[in-house]
């Protein structure tokens, strides 16, 4: 059976697409799934760094599209810790036009025969890079943060995905990841809450990731935060992975009650 092809997209930059791909990819690998992550942000590659896989890159997605490698396998970088986790890096020296949606489709069609999951890290924007990333995907995870510009862009991206879905019946309903939520600010009504965003965008919620400085530390180290047992964000990503695998997992409670606040205080949040 062919693997699932999921694009992670957002419209706006800097909301956590790459972090989301890295953590979901690692989480699925932890569950013994065979996973390949594709960085389609050609010219501005970052997934390799977030994954701590930047050393050992020889070929990239453009080389593969242009037939510079002997095989598809040769273009993939294998994770040192998880032998079932691979990365197809973006090219750092070319631009988005170096590859076409048709070429992406060919690459992905081959990969999905061998892997359980093909995760595509989409660049910011709605131009060629977006078309490339979305072309071969049948599922979409839209990442946003609780800020007006990011939610606006997410809405636009959802519209574009739904348009693409009209033409490509393989494509499914998009799902939402709400990243960098600050329960303390939501409590004070100084931040859009889960319900506000859910109500506005009206797509199924896949997960809520609380703001967590452990993510910065994880990125410094090149070890996705999902590997950190003490991180709330890591826990939230684990829940997302379980939901992708079909489990029903309740959403994490960002307790607003006295006990929750005491808990947060104890954990320095």
């Amino acid at each position: 059976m062919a693997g699932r092809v999921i694009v992670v997209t957002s419209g706006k930059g800097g909301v956590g697409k790459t972090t989301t791909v890295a953590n979901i990819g690692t989480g699925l690998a932890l569950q013994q799934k065979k996973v390949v992550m594709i960085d389609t942000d050609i010219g501005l590659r970052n997934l390799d760094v977030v994954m701590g896989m930047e050393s050992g890159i020889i070929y990239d997605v453009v080389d593969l599209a242009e037939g510079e490698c002997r095989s598809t396998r040769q273009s993939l970088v294998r994770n040192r810790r998880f032998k079932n986790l691979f990365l197809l890096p973006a090219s750092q020296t070319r631009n988005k036009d170096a590859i076409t949606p048709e070429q992406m489709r060919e690459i992905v069609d081959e990969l999905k025969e061998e892997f359980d999951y093909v995760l595509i890290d989409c660049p910011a924007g709605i131009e060629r890079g977006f078309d490339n990333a979305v072309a071969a995907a049948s599922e979409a995870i839209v990442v946003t943060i609780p800020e007006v510009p990011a939610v606006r862009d997410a809405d636009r991206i959802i519209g574009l995905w739904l348009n693409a879905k009209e033409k490509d019946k393989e494509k499914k309903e998009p799902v939402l990841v709400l990243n960098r939520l600050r329960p303390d600010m939501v409590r004070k009504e100084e931040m859009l809450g889960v319900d506000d965003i859910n109500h506005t965008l009206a797509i199924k919620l896949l997960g809520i990731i609380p703001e967590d400085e452990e993510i910065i530390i994880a990125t410094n180290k090149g070890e996705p935060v999902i590997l950190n047992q003490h991180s709330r964000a890591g826990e939230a990503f684990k829940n997302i992975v379980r939901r992708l695998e079909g489990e029903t997992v309740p959403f994490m409670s960002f307790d607003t009650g006295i006990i929750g606040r005491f808990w947060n205080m104890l954990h320095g949040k």
Partner: protein
Amino acid sequence: MKLFREDPPSKSQAVERLRLILVHDRAQVSTGLIELLRVEIINAISKYVEIDEEQMDIQLTASKTKAELVANIPVVKVRRALD
């Protein structure tokens, strides 16, 4: 904790601004929706009055405070009775 807060919490502003922005954005993305609406309005109104479809104008607009559906529909004549 602030005892005297000068401004109301900003979330309500974010919600309202987002609502208006999206009304505008979505109307441009899906001009097809406005076209469907136009056809249905013509069908509904035509039962009672004869209208000038050529001159008819429907727009979804957003002001600072609210979203509005503005329709300008020239009436040619009012029907005497339902046919």
